[in-house]
């Protein structure tokens, strides 16, 4: 059917942002404002496209077939809202060359939307690469070396995906997801292996996570979209790869271990291991952005576990956790961005007591931290709880404990952020810093809203997730608006909220009844003496004892392993360079030998 | 062994000797002259092979001009091969 390019799905979600990126590059100073408009349109347009299933075929020389269904809708909701929030945040934060920022952001947004909608490998790969190199250029804005590492891993992931696509093409002769008949089991193994590893690089799974801490320490407003939004494409890819294309029956075909497919289980293990490593490393980081980066790797490890296990509960937990992660992680990054914008410092040890001067930022970061750590009343709790139950339900002895330790670790580093940055004593230089500017607060507010809503009414989001699960054939979970039930329990948010409200009221009463004494900020810890101003904010070297216990483990860093590997290759290249000896006589000898060699091969072949 | 093959063989052997001399001799001028001799003999062979046009061209360009250009080059550079 002849689709009109402008109103069709492809038009709104890909062409419009592309047009926006060109327009914003032209509008030099107003780039960010143009960017906001073009980022807002897809988010708004999501509403009318809710439960629809539109498929389009566009032929630009190669045919691109796109399908807009609930999975796309769900992921697009995440990515577009985070993008819109980042743009809002960027109004005051991005001063240097805003047009470059806005155009590249819109370009990667277009790429991301394209990936979500594409239902054939060619268009998936086109949009995937477009998204990754525009992200590369955005990182390049802040530091060349970090950008280079990101690009190397980005291209590595792209080439893994190409290998997967190639083998798929070898067996089926076409790129469409749908005609995947007639592929032998071994073929499926290699296709899935390459695809999942390729997408896992984007989700920063442990051995391939080295690029993440560097990439996440570029501009805060971009990083929130980058870590919050774009890493979800990895989740989408694995979801489509394992369940959309292959389907549960093929996965089970590989044999099952405690009725979880043998293909998925090692990835679940890897996910748990990532969660563990990510959290441990996050605890000891002093730089705020690196800490958030490692914590992001840890949280995505949870999602990987869920996708790996493949039971309905696990996958829905993973999707819900991915949704939460998108919002609370980008909220955290925006919060960190606001703090950095105001204080100009990156190290946690150099900040302290900012909560008094930046109350709203403090509130938003507090709520995000609760969601991250999985405190019961927040939506983060439900998703983590679903993942625990999925692991325990199938009696996985390694994965469940690793996840528990990781979540304890998560609490540790989130407390470090809270205490190090916001609580404690307000330092001299920060006496008169103001609250973050309005657009930043609005952006953070927008991101906090869904977390709040879905922590009260998880049913709505579980309904969307249920549609996805049905469309990808994973199975169903039973839920109602306030809670979900699984074979070994469930969680009822209504009860939790009521309990919380009661406790909260009691605490307020005590506070209001004047039993509590207002303590001045500087007179604690000093047992009555009053020396001149003393800086007692001990955020420096926060978890020293814990670090000593883990010291033997921290010796082996994966980054150093990669350094050694690359040095080995570079020496090899210097050796190979010697072939071109710059002496024409050797070249003539090469020619003679080549003639004889070609002749022998020709004679032997024909 | 009619006359044709006899004359050709003699000339070919002479040509190959001149070629080997051109390859091995240290003095560049003599090497150039040996090369001139080779192309002279080749032009005679062309004549034997009933190709007069080519024989004249080879004689005038091969033996004449390329030898002259070679000697000019040697004049500009060195005469002895190290």
């Amino acid at each position, binding site marked *: 059917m002849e689709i009109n390019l402008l109103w069709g799905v492809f038009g709104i979600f890909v062409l419009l942002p592309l047009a926006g990126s060109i327009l914003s590059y032209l509008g030099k100073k107003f780039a960010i404002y143009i960017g906001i408009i073009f980022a807002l349109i897809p988010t708004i347009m999501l509403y009318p496209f809710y439960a629809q299933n539109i498929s389009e075929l566009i032929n630009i020389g190669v045919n691109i077939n796109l399908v807009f269904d609930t999975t796309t809708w769900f992921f697009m909701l995440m990515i577009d809202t985070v993008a819109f929030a980042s743009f809002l945040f960027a109004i005051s934060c991005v001063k240097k060359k805003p047009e470059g920022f806005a155009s590249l952001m819109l370009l990667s947004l277009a790429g991301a939307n394209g990936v979500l909608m594409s239902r054939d490998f060619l268009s998936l790969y086109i949009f995937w690469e477009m998204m990754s190199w525009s992200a590369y250029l955005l990182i390049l804005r802040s530091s060349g070396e970090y950008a280079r590492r990101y690009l190397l891993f980005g291209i590595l992931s792209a080439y893994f995906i190409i290998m997967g696509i190639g083998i798929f093409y070898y067996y089926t002769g076409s790129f469409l997801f749908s005609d995947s008949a007639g592929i032998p089991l071994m073929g499926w193994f290699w296709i899935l292996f390459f695809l999942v590893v390729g997408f896992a690089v984007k989700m920063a799974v442990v051995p391939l996570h080295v690029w993440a801490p560097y990439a996440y320490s570029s501009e805060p407003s971009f990083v929130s979209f980058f870590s919050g939004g774009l890493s979800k494409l990895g989740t989408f890819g694995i979801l489509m790869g394992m369940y959309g294309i292959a389907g549960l029956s093929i996965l089970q075909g590989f044999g099952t271990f405690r009725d979880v497919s043998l293909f998925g289980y090692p990835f679940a293990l890897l996910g748990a291991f990532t969660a563990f490593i990510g959290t441990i490393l996050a605890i000891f980081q002093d730089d705020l952005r690196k800490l958030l980066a490692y914590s992001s790797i840890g949280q995505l490890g949870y999602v990987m576990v869920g996708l790996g296990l493949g039971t309905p509960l696990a996958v829905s937990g993973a999707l819900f956790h991915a949704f939460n992660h998108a919002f609370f992680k980008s909220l955290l990054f925006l919060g960190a961005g606001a703090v950095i914008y105001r204080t100009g410092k990156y190290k946690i040890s150099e900040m302290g007591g900012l909560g008094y001067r930046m109350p709203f930022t403090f509130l938003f970061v507090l709520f995000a931290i609760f969601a991250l750590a999985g405190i019961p009343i927040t939506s983060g709790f439900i998703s983590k709880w679903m993942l625990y139950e999925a692991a325990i339900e199938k009696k996985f002895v390694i994965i469940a404990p690793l996840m528990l330790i990781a979540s304890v670790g998560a609490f540790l580093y989130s407390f470090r952020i809270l205490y190090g940055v916001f609580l404690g004593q307000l330092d001299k230089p920060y006496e008169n810093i103001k609250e973050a500017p309005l657009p930043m607060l609005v952006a953070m507010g927008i991101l906090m809203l869904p977390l709040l809503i879905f922590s009260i009414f998880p049913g709505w989001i579980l309904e969307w997730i249920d549609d996805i699960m049905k469309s990808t054939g994973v199975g169903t979970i039973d839920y109602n608006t306030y809670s979900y039930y699984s074979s070994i329990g469930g969680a009822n948010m209504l009860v939790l909220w009521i309990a919380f409200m009661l406790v909260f009221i009691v605490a307020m009463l005590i506070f209001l009844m004047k039993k509590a004494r207002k303590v001045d900020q500087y007179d604690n810890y000093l047992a009555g003496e009053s020396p001149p101003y003393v800086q007692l904010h001990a955020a420096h070297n926060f978890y020293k004892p814990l670090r000593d216990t883990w010291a033997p483990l921290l010796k082996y860093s994966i980054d150093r392993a990669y350094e050694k590997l690359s040095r080995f290759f570079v020496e090899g290249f210097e050796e190979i360079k010697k072939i071109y000896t710059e002496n024409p006589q050797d070249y003539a000898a090469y020619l*003679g030998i080549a003639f*004889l060699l070609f002749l022998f091969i020709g004679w032997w072949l024909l | 062994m009619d006359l044709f093959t006899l004359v050709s063989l003699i000339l070919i052997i002479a040509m190959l000797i001149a070629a080997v001399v051109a390859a091995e001799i240290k003095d560049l001028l003599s090497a150039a002259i040996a090369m001139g001799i080779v192309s002279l003999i080749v032009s005679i062979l062309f004549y034997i092979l009933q190709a*007069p046009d080519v*024989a*004249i061209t080879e004689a*005038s360009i091969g033996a004449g*001009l390329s030898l002259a250009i070679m000697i000019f*080059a040697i004049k*500009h550079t060195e005469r002895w091969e190290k």
Partner: protein
Amino acid sequence: MKRILGGVIAVLIFIVLALAFVHIPFGNIDLAEYHYYNPVDNEHTQDSVPQHYLDEGKKETGSTNIVTAVVVDYRGFDTLGEVTVLFLASTGVGSIMYIFEKEKRRKVRRANAVVETASKLLFGFIILFGAYIFVHGHLTPGGGFPGGAVIASSFLLLYLAYPRFHAEHKNLNIAESLAGLTFVGVGILGLFLAGYFLYNFLPFGLPTYLFSAGVIPVIYVAVGVKVGSELTGIVDAMMGVRE
């Protein structure tokens, strides 16, 4: 070490090529038996290309010297390429030797009297002979290339005899360009008149007469002048520094 490597490669290539050439008959071949396939009309004919040239060459091109007919008329495009190659060589040598002309002049011994007087006499005759060769290109053996080379050797003789002699670059260039333009012009003219590039549109006249074979003598004179001036240019450039 390089000598051994060179020797081994040389011997191996000799063996390989000799093996290939042993399969090819020398001398006792019948030119008529190689029937060619005509790709334009897509039909296999019983006629062979060399035999066709030998039988109808005289009629189709009017020149008695079949080699000249092939060089200029049947495969005239090769000769066009050939002339470009020579033009390129003289331009290349000119552009490379350009910087060396400004070098300091070196003293050059005068040639002895015999060479001077002989070259004064012979110069005219050699040019005449060269001109004879390429003007009769379509009748007797030889043609543009050898004729041009002979003219160049006559200039060479002057270089040897008179140390201070320097052929004027500007005139050489003009002669070269005009000859080249006539050649390409004749080709384009053929294109306009008869729709084929380098078509022989002039009348053929009687076979053994001087003014026969249509366009061939015109082209061969142009080639002769061009080759002559170009080789003289190369020799002049290679002479480089002169008093």
